[in-house]
């Protein structure tokens, strides 16, 4: 899946208006969607409902942010389902082993989980870079390995996390929003910080914008790639923590459905699959669009069998609207 950009570069001033429009299109789509759902069912537009949408979206947002970095590099990471499962299970096991409540040493399970996620991503990146396997395939296979690992570890059992302190992620609210929404927000800011203020974050864009050029500039692209996958793995593990926090259960199935969901969200948000364009705020908007559609369709009472189709149509429309058609000549 590659794309060639027209060798432009001489886009006149007149084009800026369109560029600005395209840049903000995902947000507009989000607002319009909210407007439509609110018109059809006024209850959609309530703080409590937004809290519900955000609770549902928080784990997916973390996973999508992780994969955003990889997509900006022009690669793709499909290992999230496995990584999330492994991290969820690893967290639960560590947490219980260390005492089962945050008040004890069990808080150690949190950093350990992040390390597990980063390590999985690191391995993923190494396989991709060292064996020269395209990331699509390498990460897909690593996803299988991850899901399998979680399965072997648990034997299929679910592990409950009952600790009230940990579950306060869901139950404790500040200004009507539960703690996990704030945690997701903090990690979003961290991601934004990485994206804009660190060498690594900027190097993602360099690799995505022109890998051979980046090599010629003396950039250690392989290192950037591996670090990118490791960073993605770490964000997947944050997603796993929030997913466990939301349901209170860690299991092999914790990672289910994250793959297509997160990549769809990233693309809908306006990050280009061919790399170099987009960022974590795009991803936030994309995730919100997907979850607003999901929530909105139930809220307005669409029959179940129509929902998948409507989601499909809306996703296509959202991507069309947020694509700068003038700047690309073809897409695969």
């Amino acid at each position: 899946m590659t794309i060639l950009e027209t060798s432009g570069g001489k886009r006149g001033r007149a084009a800026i208006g369109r560029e600005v429009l395209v840049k903000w299109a995902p947000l507009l789509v989000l607002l319009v969607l909210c407007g439509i759902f609110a018109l059809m069912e006024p209850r959609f537009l309530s703080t409590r409902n937004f809290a519900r949408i955000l609770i549902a979206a928080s784990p997916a947002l973390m996973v999508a942010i992780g994969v955003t970095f990889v997509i900006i590099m022009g690669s793709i990471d499909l290992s999230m389902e496995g990584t999330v499962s492994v991290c969820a299970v690893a967290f639960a096991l560590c947490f219980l082993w260390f005492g089962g409540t945050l008040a004890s040493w069990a808080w150690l399970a949190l950093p350990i989980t992040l390390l597990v996620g980063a390590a999985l991503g690191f391995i993923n990146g190494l396989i991709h870079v060292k064996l020269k396997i395209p990331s699509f395939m390498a990460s897909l296979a690593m996803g299988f390995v991850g899901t399998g690992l979680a399965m072997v570890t648990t034997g299929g059992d679910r592990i409950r996390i009952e600790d009230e302190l940990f579950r306060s992620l869901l139950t404790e609210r500040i200004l009507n929003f539960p703690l996990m929404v704030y945690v997701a927000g903090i990690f979003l800011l961290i991601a934004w910080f990485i994206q804009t203020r660190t060498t690594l974050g900027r190097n993602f864009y360099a690799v995505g914008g022109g890998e051979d050029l980046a090599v010629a500039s003396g950039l250690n692209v392989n290192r950037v790639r591996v670090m990118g996958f490791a960073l993605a793995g770490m964000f997947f593990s944050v997603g796993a923590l929030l997913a466990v926090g939301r349901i209170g259960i860690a299991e092999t199935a914790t990672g289910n459905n994250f793959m297509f969901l997160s990549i769809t969200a990233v693309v809908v948000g306006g990050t280009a699959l061919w790399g170099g364009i987009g960022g974590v705020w795009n991803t936030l908007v994309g995730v919100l669009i997907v979850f607003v559609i999901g929530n909105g369709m139930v809220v307005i009472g669409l029959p179940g069998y129509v929902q998948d189709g409507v989601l499909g149509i809306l996703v296509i429309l959202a991507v069309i609207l947020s694509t700068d058609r003038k700047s690309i000549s073809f897409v695969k």
Partner: protein
Amino acid sequence: MYQLNKVDKTFPGVHALKAVDFTIGRGEIVGLVGENGAGKSTLMKVIYGAYQPNGGTVSIDGTTVRFQNPRQAMDHGIGMVFQEQSLIINLTVMENIFLGFEQQFVRWGVIDWKAMAKAARHQLRKVKLDIDPAMVTSQLSFAQRQLVELAKVLALEERIKGDLVILLDEPTSVLAREEVELLFSLVRELTSRASFIFVSHRMDEVLELSDRIYVMKDGAVVDVVTQAEANVDAIQRKMVGRDVDKEYYREQLQKPYDASKTLVRFDRASVAGKFSDISFDLHAGEVLCLVGTEGSGREAILRTIFGLERPTGGTVDVKGASHCATAQEAVARGVGYVPRERKVEGIVDGMNVYENMTLSQMGRFSTRGVLRIAEEKALAQTWIDRLGIKTPDVYKDCGGLSGGNQQKVVLAKWRSGGSDIILLDHPTRGLDIGAKEDVYDMIREMCNEGAGIVLVADTLEEAIGLSHTILVLKDGIFQKRFDGSPGDKPTLYDLVHHMT
């Protein structure tokens, strides 16, 4: 003082560099010329660390060094300005300048954008470019990008102790003449800070700029001449081992065109934002050359004839009928397009010779969609023989052919299909002299067979030498028409005067 001493480089089956000696002193500008395949690019890659030599030594100020990668070369003050644009266009100017060297602006893991912008402005001043370093690179013109590249290399200056050696690989190929002048004066000024290795196919430019010129042939340095003793003919003789005389452009083969037979007619045609109010006729047997700088509307006119742009004003007629709506239609009506980006648009890398040759005319080699492959191969063999295409057989992947042979495949594609309106966009770009001559031969031949050719030439000399008619364009507007019959051709000055 940078020195190569008896440097050898071999690849399996190829002795690419043979005991090459090369020195460059402080503040010197050294030219490097040679045909394609003479070893220029291998030599450059050795210099900037992309290749490691098999024999001989590289030394800087008398100390032997060995670079494992370009980054190590950079750390020793050797920088490269690439032929193809090597800036990453989705990054800002300052990010490009300091790509790979951001660490100096990092405080506690955070990039200090203000400090980087300040440093970038300092670098941009060296190349006299007054732009906001936070601008996204894609918004710059090609000439501005070239200067940013230079600034990027010059930024090495503050990072290393010794002197800078800067390689300029075909830096002028995307620049208009005026921009080239600017670049050259800048380079001369910068000799106070660095020495330059200047690589170009444009012999006049090499002569104009260089203090000394290394001439390479077959992997060896065959001559080193100083600016004072250099002349184009002598150097070209050394490069090719034979004379390149006035017959270079085959002017004696130029025949008058058939004015009664009009193939393409532009009548006050415009494409919004690209060109406006352009009128000309292309006749059978005519070479019509469009001259102008990048963005003057030359390419847009080609694209319009080929059906990729639609005229927004006036009329464009192709063979008496209205303009082509699509490229498919254009091809069907006998328009052939030889694009500038040969490897990307000309041939399909990954398809073999006969597949490439019939790509535009598969209808003629198929029955209800089923290909008659034997006929395709026969056709390919015919044209391989006729044009002297150097390929082991028709099954050879075109991506593995040399540039000249690739171009011959592209030309064969259109000629074998009977196209009689041929659009040539920089047809000799990046070709060595021998291949260029072959292309010129073919252009004459096509004319004599009654084809009309619209040419966007690689150099002005080429434009003058080849064409019957020259249209000079500037910013999408027609400037001046020259009729260039042999012996009565416009001079370089005439063209440049109207272009800029």
